[in-house]
């Protein structure tokens, strides 16, 4: 099976401090891989490296077979990667849920073009999958952290990516919703044949669904044995 992500010996420095030091990671196409580690271990940094937002000072990153240090058209690559960030939106930006989800289609629609009916349908489909159709006309900043997280997930799905990067997708959720969301994410992963890379500080919630789990500590990763 081909590799979707292959990271070899990367070093990433932020504000003069090495966040990742000699980290290795391999994710095959179609796999559900989780990275666990404490807060500040470098999990979010790793996701930013995978989608080309951060460049490592040393080491190699291959995504979909492309060497990111050589690949010029990162915008094209990002259209294939759905990113679900951890943080919620706190500023009073006037946007309703369905528009925020439709944003996942913007890269694919292209410059100077308006969203078409098919884009709205994809957005509504994603809203339905995440069970937030009833909020479609609500303002995003008025939603709770957990609901905003579902909006971010729906946006990631509306993008129809091949690779889904999830940054602590259950942070703001209670135990019941966590389980429900993880089940949903996993069934979408299987149904859409996605490659999924999830980062979390909580090993408990990821063990059930992951093909592989990497432990991230002090900027280095190690494969957790006995999973999958």
């Amino acid at each position: 099976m081909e590799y979707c992500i292959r990271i070899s010996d990367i070093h990433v420095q932020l504000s003069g401090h090495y966040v990742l030091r000699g980290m290795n990671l391999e994710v095959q196409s179609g796999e559900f891989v989780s990275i666990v580690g404490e807060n500040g271990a470098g999990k979010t940094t790793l996701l930013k490296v995978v989608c080309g937002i951060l460049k490592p000072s040393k080491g190699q990153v291959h995504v979909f077979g492309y060497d990111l240090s050589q690949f010029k058209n990162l915008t094209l690559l990002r259209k294939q990667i759905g990113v679900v960030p951890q943080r919620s939106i706190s500023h009073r930006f006037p946007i309703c849920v369905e528009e925020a989800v439709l944003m996942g289609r913007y890269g694919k629609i292209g410059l100077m073009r308006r969203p078409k009916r098919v884009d709205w349908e994809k957005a509504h489909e994603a809203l339905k999958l995440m069970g937030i159709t009833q909020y479609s006309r609500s303002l995003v900043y008025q939603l709770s952290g957990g609901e905003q997280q579902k909006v971010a997930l729906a946006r990631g799905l509306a993008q129809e990516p091949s690779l889904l990067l999830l940054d602590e997708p259950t942070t703001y959720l209670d135990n019941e919703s966590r389980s429900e969301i993880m089940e949903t994410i996993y069934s979408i992963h299987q149904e859409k044949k996605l490659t999924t890379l999830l980062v979390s500080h909580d090993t408990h919630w990821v063990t059930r669904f992951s093909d592989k789990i990497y432990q991230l500590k002090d900027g280095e990763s190690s494969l957790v044995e006995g999973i999958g």
Partner: protein
Amino acid sequence: MSWTQTLTYPFMQHAIIAILFAGVAFPMIGVFVISLNLIPLRFAMMHIALLGGAIGLFFKVDPLFMGLLFCTLSSLALGPISERMKLGLGTLSGYFMTLTLALAFILIYKANIHVLQAFNILWGNILSLTKGDLILVGIISFFILCIIFLFFKEIQAILYDREVALAVGIPEKWFYYLIVFVLGLSVAVSMRVIGALLVDGFVLLPAMAAIIISRSLKQTFFFSALFGLISGMIGLYLSFLLDIPTSSAIILVASLIIALCGLLKRNLLGYAKIS
């Protein structure tokens, strides 16, 4: 002299045309400023314009033209410099604000330039606009409207969250540079129209009022343009009626609109919380 008689004078006609253009387009830029927290950039532009004006006076070139030129070039450069140096635009604006002010003072002192002459560039007056000024305001306003119309969805994503815009495959960096450029340009031109110290009133206040009552970015742009137009026109009329400075009158009306929007939001639209 009656109001209708005043309307026959070219200075008043120019003022009304300027409000029609800038009153609609410039408050839309205010939406960028508030959403991306670019307020320090406006201060930097003011000081950069002062340096340009001082250089203009030194070389005997139109100080207003030089002020505009410096603002345009700086707004083109600030985005990429901030990105390359990994410094926030706010921090960089602070740096340029003090540096250009220091350079302007050195030039004013050494070249024996009359201080008031240099500072004249900062005191715009909507009642003293020339045909050339109107053409400039018209071109920039048209440019702003075109950018917003053509790239609405890209701008919406960037104002919502720059990282999300990047993640969904929008060339976020280039659009951010474009926003900074358009902002710098509009602040520079607003200085001529309303004066640097009151630019915020023209650019920011209508946008603030619009954000309070809007439920989408399209509504925000629409209301900011509407409020800009209303505050400009009523402010101009009040300045004539009460014999007060026009810029101040425009700002008073814009401030009143904000207060009304706040009241409207609280009493009529409510703060519907999602249960």
